[in-house]
């Protein structure tokens, strides 16, 4: 019942969101601001629900035992410590919460980002091993662009930067725009199908 009632509401709000793009009047901005307000409220409630689901899952895993107990215990402990740190008083930038962010979260983010470099190297090597025509074109393009970016490249192959610029501004831009046009058309059509109820928000045809 609630779900059936939600669909017309979603449809009206979707149409309103499209219309406000064409309405410069303050009323249009007002509608947009209210929609954003509701979105923020829903997101806050969804975050609480998500954290509760996360905690519940790890509590179940701790109770069940097994090899995952250690990781689940660590997750629950980290959640508890972060929650306590957030509740402790202190000035901005000197709180325990900020210290945790700076000394725990940021190193984690940096570590994962640094992994990218290693993964890229191995993925590129793997790609170039295939002796197919696309891989060969990719190899030639990559080497050209890389060489053009260093002073040594121009010394080795005169005017390589001209060819590199052509690759970046020509085939690269053309391919990217082609993909974007396809994404844009498909996104518009999908949006209309969802808003009009032809296709549900999680797929499938709604009768």
């Amino acid at each position, binding site marked *: 019942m609630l779900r059936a009632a939600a669909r017309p509401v979603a449809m009206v709000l979707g149409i309103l969101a499209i219309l406000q793009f064409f309405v410069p009047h303050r009323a249009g901005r007002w509608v947009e601001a209210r929609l954003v307000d509701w979105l923020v409220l829903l997101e806050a409630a969804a975050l609480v629900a998500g954290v509760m689901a996360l905690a519940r899952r790890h509590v179940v895993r701790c109770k069940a035992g097994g090899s995952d107990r250690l990781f689940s215990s660590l997750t629950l402990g980290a959640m508890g410590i972060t929650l306590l740190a957030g509740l402790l008083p202190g000035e901005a930038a000197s709180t325990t919460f900020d210290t945790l962010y700076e000394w725990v979260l940021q190193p984690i983010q940096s570590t994962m980002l640094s992994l990218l470099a290693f993964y890229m190297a191995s993925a590129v090597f793997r790609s170039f091993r295939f002796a197919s025509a696309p891989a060969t074109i990719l190899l030639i393009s990559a080497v050209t662009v890389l060489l053009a970016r260093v002073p040594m490249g121009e010394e080795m192959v005169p005017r390589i930067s001209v060819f590199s610029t052509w690759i970046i501004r020509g085939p690269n831009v053309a391919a990217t725009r082609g993909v974007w046009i396809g994404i844009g058309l498909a996104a518009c059509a999908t949006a209309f199908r969802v808003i009009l109820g032809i296709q549900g*928000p999680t797929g499938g045809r709604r009768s």
Partner: protein
Amino acid sequence: MARVLVLLALLPSLAAGQEAVLSDSTQSAQPETSTVLVDSAAVQPQVPVPSLLPSAVESLVVIDAPNDAGGAVNLYWTLSIDEGLGVGSFAGYEVLRAGSAEGPFVSLATLGPGTDRFTDRSVHAGASYYYKIRTTSRLGGMTDSEAVGPVKGRGQWFDSRRVPVLAGLLVILLVVLTTRVLPPEQEWILPAVRTLKSILGRKHAGSVVFVPGTGGVGDMGTIASLTLLEQVVRVNADEGPPVVVYTSDPMTNALITEEFGESDTRFVCPDRMVFSLAFTGEALRQPPGVGLLVGSMGSEAFLLAETLRRSGSVAVGGTTDVAETPFLITSCDLTLIGEELFLVGPALAPDGCRAATLVHDRLKVLTWILILIGVAAAKFGVAWYMKLFGSGAD
């Protein structure tokens, strides 16, 4: 003292036998002659002489700015005659505004020579304003134009610059509404759909892991991934392995939990790198049979794809971030490129959602026609056609 300085500044002109007009620099709003052309055979050619009082601008027009919320007013004027004559002492223009014709006028902006328009974006919708343009001289003189007004900023209900966008949307809507389901023998299936069907149809040792991107629920990539998720769950519902969904966005998590239940939906963390770390740990400890990474993702898409590859899983990737697509191609067994991301979900559906692929084909044909006309328009300099495709935004 000021007059002495001005006289010193004018000495070269006076020494050349030219006549300058000196006036009180404080008086204004009188369109006085600011340059004197000496009609003398001794001075050839005629040279404009700098004056303390520059000539006022004429034809000041003030109108409400179109296509806005009422917070802007446009001003247009003809350039001061001093600019046309090339008087070296001409400094520029100053825009003045007041709430009544009597003033007091306050300065809004100082503009250089050659400027003949200004948009005042600091007006309150519905309030009345009067404007003057003050011409200034480097010698200290200034002349105000007549006050023009009242003008009110009014909000418009339709942005006329966006008519082409509206027309485009209506065409897409028309195609969506008029496209019917094709008979099965006439269906055209995307190659990616065939590959995906074969991947999902195989017997796998582990579970099917689905990541609907790391973007918000409002991202089109997320919407596309949710469409695919429903079909993946449907295909695996009878005898396939369980589908485990890892989410990073709370709203997406709530939507998936609502549709598919909490037991197989795992909210991890909104932070993309922490999400990648948690996913990497789980995937390496319990390698999935198939991993689908589909949705709005940045560099973390490559991290997740490489993790799946290292864990020996079959990886299917697809992201709306075009820059990340090449990385997915190197890591995934199947990569959904561009519109495939939006079409595989409906194409896998057992019913009429497959019409989505036909909608897209028709739209692509229309786009090709528009592009070809655009190439011809660019070749023959038809500017209005190319202007049609602006977004209308400032």
